[in-house]
């Protein structure tokens, strides 16, 4: 099937403002959108810039706005998006070139919630054991691949770029509710500020956008509840 890709292009070296490039490619209905972008880049216009790494929905580097909805190009099947596809870079981040945005502010917020296990207790010669029930509590938030689809779809984040955003809160949730972790207080303090969890207005755009189908608003709700009961 013949599909038309309409891509928002921008090269900061030569362009004053973004412009729409249109490309026609011949694809199979079962191909992925990323294959279509490759067709354009490899055979039609080599200057098109896109970021991807694993191309199998795990590395989270090819998040973009597909027909007005955030998603991963590598997980989107051509037949699901029709034969006219509009591609834009993620909203709310600075565009480096074409579909590539500057994720550094996003990663800074990710680091600010201390996304690693903090536990000074000596586990002895064994692993730190955890029951299946305790593991299940934060199972949903372990699925996050940091693609940024959620944060870039969040009106609270658009309105206030200092807001931690759904992704960082999901990462905080992953450790706050881990029974092996000992830094719950510090982490709740990190997400309890005026730019933290309470900026979530339960708009659910993040849940619609998440390619890993994480119930992000639920995770943020659990953080809010923990903040309430911990005097945050």
């Amino acid at each position, binding site marked *: 099937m013949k599909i038309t890709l309409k891509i928002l292009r921008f090269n900061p070296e030569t362009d004053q403002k973004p412009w729409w490039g249109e490309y026609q490619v011949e694809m199979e209905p079962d191909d992925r959108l990323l294959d279509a972008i490759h067709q354009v880049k490899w055979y039609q216009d080599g200057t098109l810039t896109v970021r991807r790494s694993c191309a199998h929905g795990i590395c989270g580097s090819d998040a973009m706005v597909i027909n007005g909805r955030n998603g991963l190009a590598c997980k989107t099947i051509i037949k699901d998006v029709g034969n006219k596809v509009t591609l834009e870079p993620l909203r709310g981040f600075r565009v480096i070139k074409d579909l590539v945005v500057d994720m550094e502010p996003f990663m800074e917020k990710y680091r600010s919630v201390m996304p690693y296990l903090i536990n000074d207790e000596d586990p002895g010669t064994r692993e730190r054991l955890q029951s299946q029930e305790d593991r299940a509590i934060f199972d949903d938030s372990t699925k996050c691949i940091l693609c940024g689809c959620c944060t870039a779809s969040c*009106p609270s984040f658009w309105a206030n770029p200092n807001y931690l955003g759904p992704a960082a809160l999901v990462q905080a949730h992953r450790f706050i509710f881990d029974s092996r972790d000992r830094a719950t207080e510090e982490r709740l303090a990190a997400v309890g500020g005026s730019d933290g969890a309470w900026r979530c207005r339960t708009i659910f755009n993040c*849940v619609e956008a998440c390619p890993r189908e994480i119930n992000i608003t639920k995770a943020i709700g659990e953080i809010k509840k923990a903040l309430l009961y911990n005097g945050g």
Partner: protein
Amino acid sequence: MLAEEYKRPEPLLPKKNWERWFSVTKKGVGAWAFALHRLTGILLVLYLFLHFYVLRTLTQGAAAYDNMVQFMESPILILLEVGLVAVIIYHGLNGLRLMLMALNIGVRQHKIMFWTVIVLTVFVSLIAAILMFH
């Protein structure tokens, strides 16, 4: 770090601030609920001042107030009042929905809760319309 000499554009966003809040294209139920909530909230604040303005006639004696009440009985104003009922009911009920979600209750059921709010709003507004026009 990336070469800083490149002049980077501003983040790509809907241009006007209100568009960021109200743009609902390709968004889910939650975005609609949020946009409606904010819109009804603004309308209610504006209505509050209108309400004070109408009550002002109370200070101008019985005749002025009766005059105002008579003016309020025109069908167009009754229709606007039905709209007011809808706005109040939606904002109030959706406010309850938001409070529940802030307490992490029924987050998974948020869509059902939104449609319940809509159905109740329409239902109550219809009853209000029937009562007011009789």
